[in-house]
């Protein structure tokens, strides 16, 4: 039963077995190889891969267990996807407390990577909203983990990369909303300084903020981009012409990327062209509007399997966080990328603010985060990311494991000095390609 499970970046490619966990009271399969839970495989690198080992696939653990309409507390199995939660919760007047830029992640994966979203400066990571979960260890023990019980395993499992055992179900609190619509503003900015002042001005009044940066721009355009900010619409803001409390969703126009584009399709020129068009999509400096939550939070989900844009060789993501009090660090990173000529197709910038994450290995911390993706071009791409790591290490920042496929062991241990303390909570029969790579 070897399989073709890959991660979203489709690099690296590994050989592994897989077995589905269909019911939450099932025991773990017998196997003489190492185990790793695997949800929807949306992490980019190898945290969801287990070369020569076995994946425990959890999409079959997709049942809801209980929901309290008064408090918004939802308990469900760990393979339930965020898309399924939204379909369930939004018509009932509730929303995810935190969501990453895709809704095709499972609850288990969201905990294991302690995901963050556009509201990080207000709400913190997903882990912060977890009330409890059940952890199945390979010795057969089932542990109820919460801030009050099995506390160490609770904080180790949040951002624990699936290494501490299998989460069978979890309970967390949703956030109330009045309507599925969002009130949004898109603002052009000219440079990094302007980004920081927009952030400072917006983080108080806007629940959701993030920016897209034109990574191909150089010189006086360096660091230009679009700043997106928004809030769930308030009750009194709902236009009177919308007479139903929750408008029916517009017919979904999800398209699937039908083929792998040839590997040369994304090159410096096409990426530059895309970035220029994207920056100039609005002729006004500020555009305001009302929009459905779906395109606001999940613009890329409208093209299913968009990773095929990068062809069969795959791509590398790089997401770092660096201190936000010295703006020169982000500028240095952006100019290093611009000079390399390996411009990133999509680059996202967000101010994390001061909110602390609670997982032992959580990535978000005080600072500003930049996420980039690069077509896989072998040595040149690796060399650029190595240069970026040098800047991030120097700045005492960190890189996000969930996006990574190439971090050196030295960099990882610098970013996460607590890795050794964490490792005592790893289940002895669990491991991942990522973990073996960064701790060797």
């Amino acid at each position, binding site marked *: 039963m070897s399989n073709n499970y890959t991660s979203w970046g489709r690099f690296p490619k590994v050989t592994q077995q897989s077995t589905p966990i269909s*019911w939450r009271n099932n025991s773990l399969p017998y196997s003489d190889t190492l185990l790793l839970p695997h949800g929807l495989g949306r992490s980019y690198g190898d945290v969801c891969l287990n070369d020569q080992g076995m994946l425990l696939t959890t999409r079959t653990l997709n049942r809801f267990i*209980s929901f309290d309409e008064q408090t918004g507390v939802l308990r469900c199995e760990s393979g339930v996807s965020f898309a399924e939660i939204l379909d*369930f919760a939004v018509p009932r007047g509730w929303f995810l407390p935190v969501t990453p830029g895709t809704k095709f992640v499972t609850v288990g994966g969201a905990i294991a990577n302690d995901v963050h979203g556009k509201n990080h400066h207000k709400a913190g990571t997903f882990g912060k909203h977890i009330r409890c979960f059940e952890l199945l260890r390979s010795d057969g023990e089932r542990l109820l983990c919460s801030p009050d019980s099995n506390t160490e395993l609770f904080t180790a499992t949040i951002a624990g990369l699936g290494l501490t055992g299998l989460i069978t179900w979890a309970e967390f609190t949703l956030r109330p909303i009045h309507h599925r619509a969002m009130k949004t503003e898109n603002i052009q900015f000219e440079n990094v300084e302007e980004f920081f002042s927009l952030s400072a001005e917006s983080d108080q009044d806007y629940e959701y903020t993030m920016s897209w940066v034109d990574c191909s721009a150089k010189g006086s355009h360096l660091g230009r981009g679009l700043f997106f900010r928004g809030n769930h619409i308030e009750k009194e803001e709902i236009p009177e012409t919308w007479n139903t409390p929750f408008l029916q969703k517009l017919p979904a126009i999800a398209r699937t990327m039908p083929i792998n584009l040839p590997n040369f399709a994304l090159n410096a020129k096409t990426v530059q062209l895309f970035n220029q068009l994207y920056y100039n999509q609005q002729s006004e400096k500020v555009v305001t509007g009302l929009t459905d939550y779906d395109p606001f939070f999940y613009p890329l989900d409208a093209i299913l399997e968009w990773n095929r844009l990068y062809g069969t060789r795959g791509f590398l993501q790089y997401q770092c966080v660096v201190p936000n009090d010295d703006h020169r660090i982000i500028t240095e990173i952006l100019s290093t990328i611009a000079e390399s000529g390996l411009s990133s197709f999509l680059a996202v910038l967000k101010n994390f603010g001061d909110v602390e994450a609670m997982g032992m290995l959580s990535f978000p911390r005080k600072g500003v985060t930049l996420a980039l993706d690069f077509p896989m071009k072998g040595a040149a791409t690796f060399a650029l990311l190595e240069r970026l790591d040098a800047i991030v290490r120097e700045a005492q920042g960190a890189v996000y494991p969930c996006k990574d496929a190439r971090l050196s062991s030295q960099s990882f241990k610098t970013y996460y000095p607590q890795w050794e303390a964490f490792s005592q909570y790893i289940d002895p029969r669990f491991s991942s390609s990522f973990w073996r790579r960064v701790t060797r």
Partner: protein
Amino acid sequence: MRKILIIGASSAIAQATARLFAQQKDALFLVGRNEEKLAQQAEDLRLQGAHKVDYAAFDLNEFEHHPTILSQATVSLNGLDTVLIAHGVLDDQKAGEQEYVVAEEALRTNFLSVVSLLTPIANQLEQQRYGSIAVISSVAGDRGRQSNYIYGTAKGAVSIFLSGLRNRLAPANVNVLTVKPGFVDTPMTAEFKKGALWASPEQVATGIYQGIEKEKSCVYLPSFWWLIMLIIRSIPEFVFKRLKL
């Protein structure tokens, strides 16, 4: 609101289909072997919006209980208009070639149990003169192949039985839907290497749901299997017998 009996309710395809019914606020009666699984599923379906969910655990190989299943479901749902039969096993072809009892067991579970279940069900729906029956057969029943012809025999027999039943019940306004899935990624097929032809249980469930809604007679799921099976059925026997399929 439909009143639906689902037999083999904990199979992956039936679970996904039940969810679609629940989201339409239908009332459901689930039958499967394991009570704990049925309870977990019922919880989920109630939250998904089902008007009512009840369940009972039965071993479907004990045919003498089949009439009881029908009467319990009818009482619980206060009537019955839709039935989905989704149980089955993927038997060990090689073992069945060696030992008749293995083959017989597979034919009992995959074919004879369907006949036994559908006999009282068909009579009840025929009498009330409305209703819908959907049964999961398989593309494997369209032509015997060396790799799984015992399973294929049972599924082929199910398809022929349903075709006759459809003919008989048409005047009584009862629709009979033959569902022919291709490769589906479920726990039953966990041991197989997956490729481009594989579908998810959710895709197949959507096809079953629409087939019932549109009162279709037979659906291949996903629909491209119709073309594949047309080609496979058209290969002359003198060629087919030399193929490794």
